[in-house]
């Protein structure tokens, strides 16, 4: 799963023509912004959608739309097949042992809140959850809320100077046996760091804790095998994976889905209901209250088909080359600081430019047609730790070109002059 070894043993060569063909699959990339061709370097915030995803959603609405489950008619059976087919597709994608372990949510954030709510319900006051210093707010705030509601403890594992999880510190935080869950990002959305999931899982399990990975970023950049890494929970979000907005995924080992109480109540998630009480449907339905994101699930399955059609080998090779290029080129710009120097990293590069506030920088780049993200990237505590008000982040997708990185670098040089 590491980038460098992949490349050493004859990684596939991704040619400009290949990337051009991929780009042609994304209608939006033809857009002009402020008179210049769009340079979209904000895929980590949300990725663009290939035609195949859009077409699958249109077909779902024009050909076989109805509410799923319980419907005893042809259209509902077709819609249910498509929806449950998407669940099975996701399961195959992450090598989940069973489709019933895949719960569809609104986004990663809801998936993480689900675990925060329903897992901590099994915990006793005084027991602890460990997260890390580089979590997205979505894997921090839900735990703070449950800490306050249930009197559990929240521990924060350190991140070292290169932007990697300090495994010694994590081990120390696990030592007293009070920790029941380690919930850590599989890739930082700010620093690009990919965390050593299998090692973290081994540490957690050795200490008697379950382990959750926030895969919102990681799964976009590398193949994920939830069994191989030894995860108990894995969360990700459709819109970053070239799929639709409005859908996320929580995978969890069946045992946990069975033990945890439900999160939201309502239609679809019950077995029986009386005025007095309800009993719960088996997983995954127990955790899917109300009408699910039907069309979005179909779109997500199409995104996965599309991605696997291209293949992670090619994507990894291409993105590794882009990151190398970007790090080399940007680090040569005077006054520019790069944040995060992890060995293992995905297609995300954060930087600051001396004397230029990230927001001003963003606006200037936007004028050149370049879309980047500026600010704290929903990781305010990490920013406090780094001692910056925010950074500017360029993030790459499979459609990003080396030329776009040059455009970015040239624009940054002009910004320096502009503010000089």
């Amino acid at each position, binding site marked *: 799963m590491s980038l460098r070894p992949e490349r050493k043993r004859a990684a596939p060569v991704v040619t400009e023509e290949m990337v051009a063909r991929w780009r042609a699959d994304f209608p939006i990339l033809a857009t002009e912004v402020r008179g210049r061709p769009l340079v979209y370097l904000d895929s980590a915030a949300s990725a663009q959608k290939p035609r195949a995803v859009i077409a699958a959603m249109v077909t779902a609405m024009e050909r076989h739309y109805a509410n799923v*489950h*319980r*419907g*005893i*008619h042809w259209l*509902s*059976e077709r819609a*249910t*097949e498509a929806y449950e087919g998407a669940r099975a597709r996701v399961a195959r994608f992450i090598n989940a042992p069973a489709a019933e372990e895949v719960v569809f949510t609104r986004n990663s954030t809801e998936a993480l809140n689900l675990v925060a709510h329903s897992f901590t319900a099994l915990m006793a006051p005084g027991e602890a959850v460990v997260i890390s210093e580089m979590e997205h707010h979505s894997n921090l705030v839900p735990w703070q809320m449950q800490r306050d509601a249930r009197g559990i403890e929240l521990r924060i594992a350190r991140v070292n100077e290169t932007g990697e999880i300090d495994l010694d510190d994590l081990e120390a935080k696990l030592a007293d046996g009070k920790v029941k869950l380690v919930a850590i990002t599989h890739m930082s959305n700010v620093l690009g760091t990919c965390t050593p999931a299998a090692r973290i899982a081994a540490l957690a399990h050795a200490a008697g804790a379950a382990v959750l990975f926030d895969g919102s970023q990681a799964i976009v950049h590398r193949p994920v095998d939830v069994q191989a890494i030894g995860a108990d929970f894995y969360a990700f979000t459709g819109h970053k994976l070239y799929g639709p907005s409005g859908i996320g995924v929580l995978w969890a080992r069946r045992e946990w889905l069975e033990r945890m109480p439900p999160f939201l109540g309502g239609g679809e998630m*019950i*077995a*029986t209901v009386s005025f007095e009480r309800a009993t719960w*449907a*088996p997983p995954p339905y127990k955790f899917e209250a109300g009408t699910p994101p039907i069309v979005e699930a179909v779109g997500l399955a199409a995104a996965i088909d599309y991605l696997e059609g291209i293949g992670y080998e090619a994507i990894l090779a291409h993105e590794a080359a882009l990151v190398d290029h970007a790090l080399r080129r940007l680090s040569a710009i005077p006054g520019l600081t790069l944040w995060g120097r992890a060995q293992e990293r995905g297609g995300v590069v954060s930087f600051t430019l001396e004397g230029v506030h990230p927001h001003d920088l963003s606006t200037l780049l936007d004028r050149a047609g370049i879309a980047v993200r500026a600010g704290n990237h929903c990781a305010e505590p990490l920013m406090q730790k780094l001692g910056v008000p925010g950074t500017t982040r360029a993030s790459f997708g499979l459609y990003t070109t080396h030329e776009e990185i040059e455009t970015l670098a040239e624009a940054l040089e002009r910004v320096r002059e502009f503010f000089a």
Partner: protein
Amino acid sequence: MFDDLRDLYQEIIIERARHPRHAKRPLRADREAKGDNPLCGDRLTLWLAHTPEGRIAEAGFEAKGCAISLASADLMAEAVVGLTPEEAEMLADAVQHLARTGEAKELPPALAERFETLLPLGGVHEFPSRVKCATLAWHALRAALGRKDEEASA
């Protein structure tokens, strides 16, 4: 308009649903299992009585549900009498396969004959939302036979 529905609702299904022959608890029942299908609300209790040698001596049920689930339970209660638990499992397997795919599995002669009487349950394979109606009783059968890994819900 509904001629083609005769595949699904064969005479025997309608007849057995309306006048089931085994909708009662056998006097000497020694096993009980419940089955329910939360998606449609069908519920069923199944009882088995065994011979001293461990063969099924009698089967009976009490159920709420659609014609298909009632007929399936009634036909099952008839088909399993005299079988060993292993044979009953094999039969359940074949019926579940039939309901899902419409295809008959190869079976030993003794079972094949009984399976013939269950073929009308194969009509549901064209109606994915009704497959569980046909298989509910068979899930309960497995549960009553004591297979731990089998849940008594379709």
